[in-house]
């Protein structure tokens, strides 16, 4: 190939660069810098002279592309006006009531009756019960339920779990319950004094898989006999109604069990976090339940039942992670060490930035899964992606929250240690709620 001007120049430069005269005269660095600049400006000269640009059709104003007239609901993450108002109301309740009560509720291992009745006044349960049963729900809305879960957990995850547990039972009964089950149980959730209730799904064994339950339900005439142990059952101490998942001859099933059913025992083990919801284990020692109390007809989708619960946990973890974020950012900007705010240290700034990125990623995955569930599309895969990310990153955010506060983080005076303990729950929680 014949050499052009640049080619000659480059080869001349290469020769200079190769010669050891430079080293002898101690000029190598200067020469290398010079050749670098020469080659760069040389290339620039060629590219600007190879084409002449002219205005062909003079435009009066610039042409831009606008947003599509009709947005596809797939990635439209805008919430409706109604959802915005619900968020405002729930968020206010969470920050003004739940956040204030959090320390006491954690210490006393109980969500106070006052908080529960204030939550009832907010009408959270009514929102899960259809209008025909004195509720206020006109359509299924897992997305709204998810936003509620997130905002409640922004105030306090433990109390949020206490409030969401009965709402989950109501949601499950609305979604899967038979006419008889609905008229027996569901209407009480719309009343003035809604029952405390919870779903019992998790089991105390390594690598728990909700699709492979060790709790069994054996058919005996018109009854089922349930045998096994459940863990992390919220409100266990005073719940009046449990939905217990158990393995039957025809796959996993869920059974409505009332408090006071013989041979149903509540454990005394208390977990590290979520103490306001006092999760306990539940032992079923040949508990006899009527076959009419098995949830759902043939259309019962156990997989969706589990996944909607898992997504509710994701939403709660997002809310509490957001609480951590909103706490550490001003703290790091105000807390001074070595004469400057600690956020000036890169190790701190990068950690906070990572937390923000991970939190948004958690939110996007979860919102996507729940919005697919709301649209009636398959969401099993999306739910699992969300859970896998959330259980990892929410725990990291909890740990980092404590870390960023240094010695303060390890004391009860600051809420981050409680958030850390609460967020750890996402690693063991699987289902057990319902959007």
């Amino acid at each position, binding site marked *: 190939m014949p050499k052009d001007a640049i080619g000659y120049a480059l080869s001349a430069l290469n020769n200079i660069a190769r010669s050891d005269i430079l080293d002898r005269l101690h000029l190598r660095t200067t020469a290398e810098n010079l050749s670098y600049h020469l080659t760069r400006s040389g290339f620039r000269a060629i590219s600007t002279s190879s084409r002449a640009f002219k205005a062909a059709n003079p435009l009066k104003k610039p042409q831009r592309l606008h947003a599509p007239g009709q947005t596809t609901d797939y990635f439209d993450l805008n919430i409706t006006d*109604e959802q*915005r*108002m619900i968020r405002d109301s729930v968020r206010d309740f969470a920050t003004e009531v739940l956040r204030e009560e959090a320390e006491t509720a954690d210490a006393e291992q109980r969500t106070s009756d006052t908080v529960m009745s204030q939550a009832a006044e907010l*009408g959270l349960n009514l*929102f899960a019960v259809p209008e025909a049963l004195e509720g*206020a729900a006109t359509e299924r809305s897992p997305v709204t339920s998810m936003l509620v879960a997130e905002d409640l957990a922004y105030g306090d995850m433990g109390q949020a779990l206490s409030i969401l547990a009965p709402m989950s039972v109501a949601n499950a009964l609305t979604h899967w319950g038979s006419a008889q089950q609905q008229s027996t149980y569901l209407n009480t959730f719309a009343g003035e004094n809604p029952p405390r209730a919870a779903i019992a799904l998790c089991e105390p064994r390594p690598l728990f898989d909700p699709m492979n339950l060790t709790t069994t339900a054996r058919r005996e005439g018109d009854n089922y006999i349930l045998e096994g142990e459940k863990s992390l059952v919220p409100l266990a101490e005073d719940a009046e109604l449990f939905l217990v998942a158990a393995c039957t001859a025809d796959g996993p099933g869920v059974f409505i069990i009332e408090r006071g059913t013989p041979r149903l025992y509540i454990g005394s083990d208390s977990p590290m976090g979520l103490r306001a919801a006092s999760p306990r284990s539940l032992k079923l020692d040949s508990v006899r339940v009527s076959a009419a109390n098995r949830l759902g007809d043939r259309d019962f989708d156990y997989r969706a039942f589990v996944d909607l619960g898992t997504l509710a946990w994701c939403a709660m973890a997002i809310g509490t992670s957001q609480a951590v974020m909103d706490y550490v950012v001003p703290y790091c900007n105000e807390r001074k060490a070595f004469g400057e705010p600690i956020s000036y240290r890169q190790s701190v700034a990068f950690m906070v930035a990572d937390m923000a990125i991970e939190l948004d990623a958690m939110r996007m995955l979860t919102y996507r899964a729940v919005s697919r569930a709301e649209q009636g599309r398959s969401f099993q895969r999306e739910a699992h992606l969300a859970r896998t990310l959330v259980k990892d990153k929410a725990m990291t955010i909890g740990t980092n929250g404590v870390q960023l506060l240094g010695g303060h983080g390890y004391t009860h005076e600051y809420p981050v240690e409680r958030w850390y303990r609460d967020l750890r729950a996402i690693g063991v929680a699987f289902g057990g709620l319902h959007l």
Partner: protein
Amino acid sequence: MKVLVAVKRVIDYNVKVRVKPDNTGVDLANVKMAMNPFCEIAVEEAVRLKEKGIASEIVAVTIGPKVSQEQLRTALALGADRAIQVETDDEVQSLDAAKMLKAVVDKEEPNLVIMGKQSIDTDNNQTGQMLAQLAGMPQGTFASEVEVEGEKVKVTREIDGGLLTVSLNLPAVVTTDLRLNEPRYASLPNIMKAKKKPLETVSPADLGVEAAPRLKTLKVEEPQPRQPGIKVESVEELVDKLKNEAKVI
């Protein structure tokens, strides 16, 4: 009895307000807006009057751009029966707001008007008083207690040095102070119902009022940051500083 409640859309009280670089005002881009806290108290008071069986209808009214419908929906979710929006994108100052509200009062003929004593954006504390004057109604401002007794309303007012109780003939204008009540949270079912309640939109021209600003904002500035305090070694030094530096004793 019909109660008219005026509400205003302002920057949410939790937001840290930023001044625009050119000092012409505060930055409203991407800032969370909410109902003025004093207006929330006014809505709550009206709803309580309805719950007591004294008020029969609550009409919420606001003046502002189209988006201020959000605050009317909030008022409806809190318990108002219907809403009127006076839609305008122009700046509306106290006197113009009072004139527009007067036109609404003429049309609606409420027995009681309840509104916030001031909005937390401009802090003027004028509209209620101006409305009372324009509409020829008695006024009970800075109310910490409101009691309707037949054709009269007894208003306990928070004033310097104590409480003053006035009795007003209805119809009257009452403006709310912070301690009048603690507003409730809008319940989810009521938020759902709010969508179905009527919301009427009118323009200032429909009311025969033309907004004409009489005040010009010259400059908006951030308040001076507070100077950090100092530590003194002894009482003598403290007294010396108070006397000679601060000159307060």
